[in-house]
């Protein structure tokens, strides 16, 4: 067995999404040495996959890419991709030991020029997770066009080991002899920024997701609306028709005790309204109907954004969806309770978007040895004192940033990361007093 390499940093940041990245950047700017451990092949988390942000309709990639580029190039930040913190021990005050496991990429990033010749040569086609399964990708692939780092990777599980990629690579950066790496990371503090999981709509079979091809998730629509979209335009996945009557079902997996998530996901109303506006721009002849329980437009500029979508022609129906069925032509019948009229009604749409909620990603709590990382009732990381020290957890020296604490939008995630870096700095300064 190979010996574990020992590394030393001031702070270990778990998660390279927008919160983890922001916290790492703040700490690195204060001259702390930071290690970011990211499980995926790129920085940017879920934000980098979005089309635009609400309520400003700024391009999400245009905000994210300069940020991830700054993180990647910062001399005080080291990033480990395809890596996970398997075990984190608190040895003493300002003294943590993390066991980090890194899977091989089978590509030497430093030598890859992102020429995509390997992608072109690869004969394999598998589901592209980044495009939410709407299109395929190769087994030798660049995760997505704005990935950071923009470098190839080999999907070893789906690779036929034909060697075509290796033969065409002009820099010889592909290396199938790479193996897993294990590290012991000695650090003074830990920031947990592990984000959230999206609700799996298969848990509500009456909505027909997975069974009816024209029922999609909001993240699938997000990809369809993005400039780096999977299709030539917005199409329904069942038969490639340009939809002209699209329904949104809000609160899919949120505020619903029956699926184990009674809380509001905070972002679904606004991202659905945003998508409605973008759809009206992309498909000017289309009707967009949003079925809601309550519209929660609580943030700065949110209510104006909601009003704007109504002015643009988005229809809002206060209604609870009973079930969705499919017609022979692929259209969908929504049976719903019109809450304002107190009647059960039916409506036909040619595509349905399920506005899926934000669920906790609590996996990291199991990594903490000895004193476990406390979770709240919904599986998010518990904040010790939400008003006085919002980033503090039950373990002194472990801080939390972004949606790992609960559902929130992008500006709040960045604010939360700011709080986490400030509290981490304060903790680190205590060590030097």
């Amino acid at each position, binding site marked *: 067995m190979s010996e574990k390499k020992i590394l030393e940093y001031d702070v270990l940041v778990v998660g390279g999404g927008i919160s983890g990245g922001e916290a790492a950047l703040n700490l690195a700017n204060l001259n702390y040495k930071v290690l970011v451990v990211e499980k995926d092949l790129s920085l940017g988390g879920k934000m980098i996959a979005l089309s635009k942000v609400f309520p400003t309709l700024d391009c999400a990639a245009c905000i994210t890419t300069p940020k991830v580029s700054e993180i990647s190039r910062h001399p005080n930040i080291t990033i480990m991709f395809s890596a996970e913190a398997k075990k984190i021990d608190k040895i003493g005050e300002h003294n943590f030991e993390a066991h980090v496991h890194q899977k091989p990429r089978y590509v030497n990033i430093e030598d890859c020029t992102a020429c995509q010749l390997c992608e072109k040569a690869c004969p394999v086609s598998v589901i592209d997770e980044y495009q939410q399964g709407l299109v395929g990708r*190769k087994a030798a692939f660049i995760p997505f066009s704005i990935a950071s780092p923009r470098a190839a990777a080999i999907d070893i599980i789906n690779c*036929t080991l034909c060697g075509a990629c290796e033969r065409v690579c002009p820099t010889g950066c592909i290396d199938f002899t790479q193996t897993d790496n294990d590290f012991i990371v000695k650090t003074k503090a830990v920031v947990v920024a592990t984000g959230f999981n999206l609700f799996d709509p298969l848990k509500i079979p009456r909505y027909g997701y997975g069974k009816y091809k024209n029922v999609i998730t909001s993240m699938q629509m997000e990809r369809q609306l993005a400039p780096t979209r999977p299709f030539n335009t917005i199409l329904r996945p*069942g038969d490639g028709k340009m939809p002209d009557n699209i329904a949104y079902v809000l609160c899919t997996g949120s505020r619903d005790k029956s699926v184990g998530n009674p809380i509001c996901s905070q972002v679904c109303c606004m991202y659905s309204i945003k998508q409605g506006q973008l759809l009206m721009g992309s498909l000017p002849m289309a009707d967009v109907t949003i079925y809601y329980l309550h519209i929660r437009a609580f943030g700065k500029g949110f209510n104006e954004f909601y009003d704007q979508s109504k002015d643009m022609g988005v229809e809002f129906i206060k209604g609870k969806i009973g079930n969705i069925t499919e017609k022979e032509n692929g259209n969908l019948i929504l049976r719903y309770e019109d809450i304002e009229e107190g009647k059960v009604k039916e409506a036909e749409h040619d595509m349905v978007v399920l506005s899926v909620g934000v669920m906790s990603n609590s996996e990291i709590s199991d990594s903490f040895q000895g004193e476990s990382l406390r979770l709240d009732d919904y599986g998010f990381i518990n904040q010790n004192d939400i008003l006085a020290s919002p980033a503090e957890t039950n373990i002194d020296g472990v801080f939390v940033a972004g949606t790992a604490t609960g559902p929130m939008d992008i500006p709040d995630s960045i604010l939360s990361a700011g709080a986490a870096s400030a509290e981490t700095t304060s903790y680190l300064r205590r060590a030097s007093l």
Partner: protein
Amino acid sequence: MEVEKGKTAKYRKEKNPVAKEVMENLKYFTKTKKILMDALKEGDKTVPQLSKALNIPGDEVLYQLMSLMKYGFVETGDLDDMDEYFYYKIKDNGKDKS
């Protein structure tokens, strides 16, 4: 053991044989690609037309067609008369041999 640069896939294959499902997936993609490309050689077609002609479900046709478009084999043509479905065609009339 030093493995010659550029031949590391062969080295790995000797140590870790490729799973049967992976080879089956490759066969399926190659076959579907051929069927779709052959159908498009006969003329531009929409997803429902391809689905009907090849007896493949519409969602599968769209998925494979969009993958072929991403890989540079297929491109978008005109919209049909009802402005509902796009026609798809072989990229550059098949001049690009990639």
